[in-house]
């Protein structure tokens, strides 16, 4: 199988979706001639023209609102919000409108838009250009939240997101854009709401999100050398969360470690932990463990940011502690 980067896989999914349907169009800041701030939409303007790859002014609320409006007439807009930190500016359109429209209209309205964004933690972008905020969107019933960790999943999940009839928040990770992996050439989907067991193991369950998946897998390899066999689960979709796969794994291993780039308090890990506590408390052999970011704005200086960030080493260290129980 051929290898592509995470970024190329996303570009391919967008390009083929636009080929397949004229209803698909892109809008966002600098996505045209510039090719997107990170290069995900590179070449698409040349291929599909300015009517379908629309450069917008810096108007995050209007970008999402306009995507929503177009979706109400059956189009499939893919809006890009350059940094996840900018998403709160469009929160009203995304959460208060798009997510709830189907429900509030008694099923009359379907906001089938895809909102792509990325988080840049690890690139010394400072506290307003690095945040990973998935938990903010867990309290938005109607919105699906996707966070791929591999090139294969990036393409398959984006394809599946484009088929959704409701809104999808698709969160990419800038640190993963250059990561490579096998990506099938043809069309395929990775279903939303289905976790992937990235590594089988019987001693503990590590639930890892986005960038922390490869970090957790690397940690698991080192743990294996020390005789600890970790199972690594990638939920892939944060909302809806595949609770069953997580519960099944914890039921088998009896130990849970959660690794995610977002902040500890009220983060995705807190939701996963609560779920396991509610549904599999009796199968836990040890207190659960979380490797997340501390409750601080992200520091700018690279050495400090590195210290701030969850990492493979931190996962390994926490896993070794967990294994002592």
């Amino acid at each position, binding site marked *: 199988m051929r290898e592509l980067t995470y970024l190329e896989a996303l570009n391919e999914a967008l390009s083929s979706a636009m080929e397949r349907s004229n209803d698909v169009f892109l809008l966002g800041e600098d996505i045209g001639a510039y090719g997107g701030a990170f290069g995900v939409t590179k070449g698409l303007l040349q291929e599909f023209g300015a009517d379908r790859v629309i450069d917008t002014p810096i108007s995050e609320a209007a970008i999402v609102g306009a995507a929503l409006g177009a979706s109400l007439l059956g189009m499939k807009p893919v809006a890009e919000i350059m940094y996840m930190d900018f998403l709160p500016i469009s929160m009203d359109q995304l959460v208060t409108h798009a997510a709830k429209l189907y429900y509030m*209209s008694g099923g009359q*309205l379907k906001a089938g838009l895809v909102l792509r964004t990325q988080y840049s933690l690890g690139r010394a972008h400072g506290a307003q250009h690095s945040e990973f905020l998935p938990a903010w969107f867990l309290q938005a019933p109607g919105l699906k939240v996707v966070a791929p960790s591999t090139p294969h999943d990036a393409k398959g999940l984006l394809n599946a997101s484009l088929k959704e*009839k*409701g809104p999808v928040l698709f969160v990419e990770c800038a640190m993963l854009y250059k990561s490579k992996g096998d990506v099938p050439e043809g069309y395929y989907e990775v279903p939303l709401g289905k976790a992937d067991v990235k590594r089988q193991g019987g001693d503990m369950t590590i639930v890892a999100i986005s960038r922390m998946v490869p970090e957790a897998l690397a940690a698991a390899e080192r743990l294996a050398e020390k005789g600890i066999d970790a199972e690594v689960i990638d939920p892939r979709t944060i909302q809806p969360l595949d609770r069953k796969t997580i519960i099944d794994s914890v039921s088998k291993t009896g130990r849970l470690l959660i690794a995610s780039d977002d902040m500890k308090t009220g983060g995705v890990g807190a939701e996963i932990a609560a779920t396991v506590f509610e549904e599999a408390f009796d199968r836990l052999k040890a207190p659960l463990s979380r490797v997340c970011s501390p409750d601080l704005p992200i520091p700018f200086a690279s050495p400090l940011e590195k210290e701030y960030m969850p990492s493979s080493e931190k996962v390994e260290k926490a896993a070794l502690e967990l294994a002592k129980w």
Partner: protein
Amino acid sequence: MNDIVTVGTTTPTELKGLGIPDEKLKSILRKMVLARRFEEKVEELYLKMALITGPCHLYLGMEAIAAGAAEALTVDDYVLATYRGHGHAVTRDAPLDKVFAELMGRVDGTCKGLGGSMHAATWTEKKLMLATAIVGSNIPIAAGMGLAVKKKGLDAVVVAYFGDGAVNSGSFNEGVNLAAVWKVPAIFVCENNQYAMSLPEARGVASKSIAERAAAYDIPTFVADGNDPVSVYRAMKEARGICRRGDGPCFIEARTYRMKGHGIYDKADYRPSDEVREWAGKDPIAMFSKLLVDQKVLSEKEYGDMRSTIDNEIEAAVKKARASPYPEFSTLQGMVYPE
């Protein structure tokens, strides 16, 4: 900057010369009376009978705008209303019983009882695409719908209604700018009732006028008399033509006055009494019905018949709405994600 075109108040001598068929004028009046009677009934159901609860924002006094505009649109045009949207719903021929049922939170409501009073005007069968409760938020949505209309080559325009308070939101500025940059067929109608809840326009809008602010986006801008449905009708007709020629978006400021408070619970005692009295003298229905009767477009008897027919329609609709049950709680979980 585009010139601001003022469409003045219709004078008695002018009316016949405008070439608007009598049937159209009668239809406008009927819609105004319907909107008025609907809201009076809502007030009764809320205050006296407690059949309607929650926030409820009446359209009383603003009927000339929705009715005049509705008659200038076609069935293919899209309308984005607000939380003060009952008037837009009934003048767009949404089924009265369903709008009442929605206000009561009943399962036969326009939104199956899940939207409530601020969203009762959502009725996609009549292309009432949305009724938003967040001030100004339908403006960027209209820009996107306009883009879709353009892309699909539909013979339609998108009309977004909002109040004077909305023009101070980021959404207004982002949305109108985007629509203007894209040149989409969207018509932004500011129903300037002069109060953003309790804040008077003069203390909220720094620009000389709202129309001037819109015109700064270099789009065709009209100022209509919001208490004269013919003025609104003419402005809307003109704006629709511009949009269909591909020269949209357009903006209409229609100056009017809320007869009551922001919501049904608001006594509006922050308004000077002489101001209230002055506008009470400009009741759009009293003025327009007098104009039509004086100009012999319809007789006193016809007008009386029109009113009693509407009264009967309202009573029948309320009866039907009251008979509808509340939605089952157990069905809600299945309503979150579209099938």
